[in-house]
């Protein structure tokens, strides 16, 4: 298993998209921070720091792309035979890919955090300090960490769905497109969903509603009335759905002919 994860990380590190993703993330965050520095009247320095200067939102795209390709790539290059005929169980091979993606998402989150701190110190050092109170008697740093944790859990719900879908596609490009289009579709559908939840209470347990976790954590009063779930319920909902989607992905992958 360790061997398999090492192999996946080796491939990931040698892919061009990895280094491009990293540079793009840092660049996008810098651009965002510089703009808000130049337009102080529109900006909320603390809020932008908490949102990693857009970093955690961009990470969603990079991770959707990475998760779509990590399985589809093997089919596209014909390397799936190489992987699967060896002595490992299929479950181990799939799990090694999940774990690699988990490590990759952690890497992006840590990178976003560290770079946010750097941007803050360089551009906004005089504006606020990490221990300032942001909302509900909580410091900026505290809110930041809670927001990161919430969006990370939500990210993984989304990624588990992408990993399931990517299993069905044999080309990376198709898998990426469906992943990203699906992501936009869900954000558009969410206002419709709130209306439906208002009508049929039990719909609050649907997986799309779970994606509101990080919004609710940073702004619980407003969103909470829409989702009709407590923070704890949302966290558990996210974890359970992530588990279900990953397991479904495993069921598809286990029996797949190559």
């Amino acid at each position, binding site marked *: 298993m360790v061997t398999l994860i090492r192999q996946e990380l080796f491939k990931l590190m040698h892919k061009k998209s990895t280094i491009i993703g990293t540079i793009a993330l840092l660049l996008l965050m810098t651009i965002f921070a510089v703009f808000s520095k130049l337009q102080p009247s529109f900006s909320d320095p603390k809020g932008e720091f908490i949102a990693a200067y857009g970093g955690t939102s961009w990470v969603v795209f990079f991770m959707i792309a990475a998760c779509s390709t990590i399985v589809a790539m093997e089919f596209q290059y014909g390397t799936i*035979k*190489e992987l699967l005929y*060896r002595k490992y169980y*299929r479950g181990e091979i799939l799990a090694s890919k999940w774990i690699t993606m988990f490590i990759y998402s952690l890497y992006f989150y840590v990178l976003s955090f560290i770079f946010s701190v750097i941007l803050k110190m360089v551009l906004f050092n005089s504006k606020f300090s990490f221990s300032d109170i942001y909302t509900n008697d909580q410091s900026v740093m505290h809110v930041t960490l809670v927001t990161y944790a919430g969006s990370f859990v939500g990210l993984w719900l989304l990624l588990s769905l992408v990993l399931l879908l990517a299993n069905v596609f044999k080309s990376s490009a198709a898998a990426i497109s469906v992943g990203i289009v699906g992501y936009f579709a869900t954000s558009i559908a969410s206002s419709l969903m709130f209306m439906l939840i208002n009508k049929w209470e039990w719909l609050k347990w649907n997986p799309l509603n779970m994606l509101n976790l990080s919004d609710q954590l940073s702004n619980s009063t407003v969103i909470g009335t829409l989702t009709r779930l407590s923070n704890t319920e949302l966290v558990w909902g996210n974890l359970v759905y992530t588990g279900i989607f990953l397991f479904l992905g495993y069921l598809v992958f286990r029996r797949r002919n*190559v």
Partner: protein
Amino acid sequence: MDDILTVKNLNKSFGKNKVLKDVSFNVQPGKVVGLVGPNGAGKTTIMKAVLGLFDFQGGSILINGKGVSITKHQALSEVGALIEYPGIYPFLTGMQHLELFADDTSTDKADIQNVIDELNIGSYINRKAKAYSLGMKQKLGIALALLNNPKFVILDEPMNGLDPKATKELRNLILDLAKKGTTFLISSHILSELEKLVDEIVVIDNGKIIKQTSMEDLSDSNGNYLVLTTTNDTKAREILSAEGVTLEKSDKLKIKKTSDDQLAGLIQLMSSHNINIVDVQHEQNDLETSLLDLLDNDQVKE
């Protein structure tokens, strides 16, 4: 000695399409076995099943006595394979491919170098694989199959895209490894090449095994002919037919060799009709002819 591979009554369908029908054959350790048959006969499907890439509807596959299926792969730890076309990551170099799949970090450096030298791929091993030609990719695929000193190697059309020199080097390498005890199962359409390699041959047509035989038996059983040239071929043909000797379809007088004193009888027969035999040639069927005969007969039976 026990078989390294035993396939028993293997059945495989894709939907309603029965692709393998009660396929049974075995491979003994240290042997080079050829798997031949027309396009779509089921060669690749058999190999994939043996590698646990497919689930199959019935029968069993044993490697070293241990069962193999889509969920049981332990027996494959000492198997190397190249199926259809090599799986290559375009963003890695050849060397990185070898490092990626090399088993054990303490011995792999020497093993990798060994494989590179044997296949003569050192000159481009450090270039990115997306810039490789067909043959270069093929050789890298073979290198990956031979990495980690597997006991049993499965190669599906390994000569695909190789130039004559590389083909010869590959042949020598396979024979060399076989001498040291590695077992091979090889499919190929290049029969003239396969002929020089294999000890045994498994013929498959339409999802059924129609023959498993050693190379010697194959050429002995349907491979030896006498070709006569006489002073009067037309008359000789009539006489032979009248005597009940079967002539092969040919514009020459071609007779299947059945025994060693057959020729003496023929000479006697001819001279009793005042025909002189001016030349006798011994013809041996090559694998191609034997195989085509076999497949023809198979179709006749059906």
